[in-house]
């Protein structure tokens, strides 16, 4: 801990107001999402706690019929908007983290493999990466989602949607990781410690995972942070378009989709609060990623 507080990284963090503020915002959002059941005043998915009479209550104003008052108002079914946002953010963050983790594991493994093994393996993996890079990743994610939806039986579609979403966003994003890891692996491969490990008869898999991998991870961290912001936005976009999280498990994107329907009838709070939350989340993670990139790579400044 002492060592961490004295490190260059922490110093650059402490002296960058943007980084500190965006870290605090991101941390608050993540914590309130993780502890949503404790923070949220109601559980929006428990039908017993809902009262249809509370529908369309404006923020901070008592309801005409029940006299109850809600911090961010309620939606058409009387669900507390603040609670749905907390639970929705949970799904957004879960999908975002899981998708990036999936893309990272896949990308690191394929990157190591193509960098270390070379030959045909490398050609096939990197060609596939090139082909995929030709298309915008959101389009790739949509296609994967569509195909996966077609394969899953109708009765499981809503349950599986979250997992399909993670798979789709993860698969659309592995290329960045694989490219960077491959580049770093090519450099590390020719170093003496790799030759030594090979001499004492370690298997290629052990050399890749135990010896090379720890040395190629620092750029991966930067990409992961930036990917997280992109994954959160991608998830929100897909859900907003109606090809993501189902209304039974709404993420922030689904909530915005629902809220858009009330834009013309004057219930602005159903749309505004989820949208503002998404914006804060994406912006803070994005700024953190930018800061981390500059801090770990002073040359890029």
């Amino acid at each position, binding site marked *: 801990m002492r060592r961490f507080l004295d490190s260059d990284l922490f110093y650059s963090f402490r002296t960058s107001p943007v980084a500190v503020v965006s870290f605090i915002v991101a941390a608050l959002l993540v914590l309130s999402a993780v502890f949503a059941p404790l923070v949220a005043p109601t559980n929006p998915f428990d039908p017993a706690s809902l009262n249809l009479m509370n529908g369309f209550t404006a923020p901070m104003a008592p309801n005409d019929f029940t006299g109850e008052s809600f911090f961010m108002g309620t939606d058409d079914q009387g669900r507390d908007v603040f609670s749905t946002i907390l639970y929705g953010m949970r799904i957004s963050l879960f999908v975002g983290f899981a998708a990036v983790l999936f893309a990272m594991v896949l990308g690191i493994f394929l990157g190591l493999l193509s960098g270390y093994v070379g030959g045909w393996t490398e050609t096939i993996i990197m060609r596939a990466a090139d082909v995929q890079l030709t298309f915008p990743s959101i389009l790739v994610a949509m296609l994967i989602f*569509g195909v996966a939806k*077609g394969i899953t039986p109708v009765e499981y579609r809503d349950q599986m949607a979250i997992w399909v979403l993670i798979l789709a966003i993860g698969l659309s994003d592995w290329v960045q990781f694989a490219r960077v890891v491959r580049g770093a692996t090519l450099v590390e491969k020719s170093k003496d410690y790799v030759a030594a490990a090979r001499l004492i008869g370690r298997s290629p898999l052990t050399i890749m995972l135990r010896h090379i991998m720890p040395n190629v991870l620092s750029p991966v961290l930067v990409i992961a942070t930036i990917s997280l912001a992109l994954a959160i936005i991608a998830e929100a*976009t897909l859900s*907003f378009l109606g*090809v993501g999280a189902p209304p039974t498990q709404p993420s922030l994107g689904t909530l*915005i989709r629902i809220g858009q329907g009330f*834009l*013309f009838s004057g219930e602005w709070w159903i749309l505004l609060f989820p949208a503002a939350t998404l914006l804060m989340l994406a912006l803070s993670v994005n700024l953190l990623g930018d800061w981390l990139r500059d801090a770990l790579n002073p040359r890029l400044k």
Partner: protein
Amino acid sequence: MLSYIIKRVGQSVLVLLITGLVAFSMFTFVGDPIDNMLGQERTQADIDRLREQLGLDQPFVVQYYRFLEQAVQGNFGISYRQGRPVGEILLERAPATLELALVSGIFAILAGIALGVFTAIRRDGIAANVIMSVSLIGVSLPTFLIGILLIYLFSVELGWLPSFGRGDVVDVGGWSTGFLTASGLKALILPSITLGLYQMTLIMRLVRSEMLEVLRQDYIRFALARGLSNRVINFRHALKNTMVPVITVIGLQLGSIIAFAIITETVFQWPGVGLLFINAIQFVDIPVMAAYLMLISVMFVAINLIVDILYAFIDPRLRVAA
């Protein structure tokens, strides 16, 4: 040079064959067309007969070849949802998307270059700094939020512009255009801004950084010493020399505009190809999805190929490396 071009064309054909394979596999592995076409009361003989009729008893490679043959002729089968040929539906929807993409592309290029030059020349001015900061937020803002924001401002609050659809369209030789009516033009404004905003920021930032680079060169200082006016220096000398990378980026972004039209078209219920695709995903309409995939990949591969070949003409080093 020729061998480089041949190699690149070969690679592009390979990419198209692979995406074709993906599109074809969607037909083969996602759902059974026999199931879709025959009702509940069917005999094994019916199934076999239809299977033979559709050529589904043939080996995979033969089926794939037939699929490609049909696709090249623009025949992508019949939409499961609308029951009409997919090619016909796509042709009907294409003008809407192309007009939207055209207008937002022009907006992105003109506004992007103008703002880029402005922020480069007035580097320390307040307005330039405000534009730069706003553009940073604009990049992190998801497209659909920008669209909703514009709708809220200009349709709900001010009531100036329509929030959905294309307005009145005129049919000119099979091409339905919104350029000829007032409501059609009005309907174009918000979607084009939404779609073009990201590309505009990109072009603006690129033009700005290239301009700053060029303005530092000796020939600019020399032009100043010759007593040329600022206007001539900035636009004749500086801007001209920033255009090469800008044109490349514009070329590469062309494809993204059409791809991202999916989002904008959904927000504004714009009856284009993108909205068709999203609806196809929602209802698992495989023929439409496959056709859209093929169409978009031909476009992307063609754009990449053209940019690469142009590069080879401009930069001789690439020819040697190839």
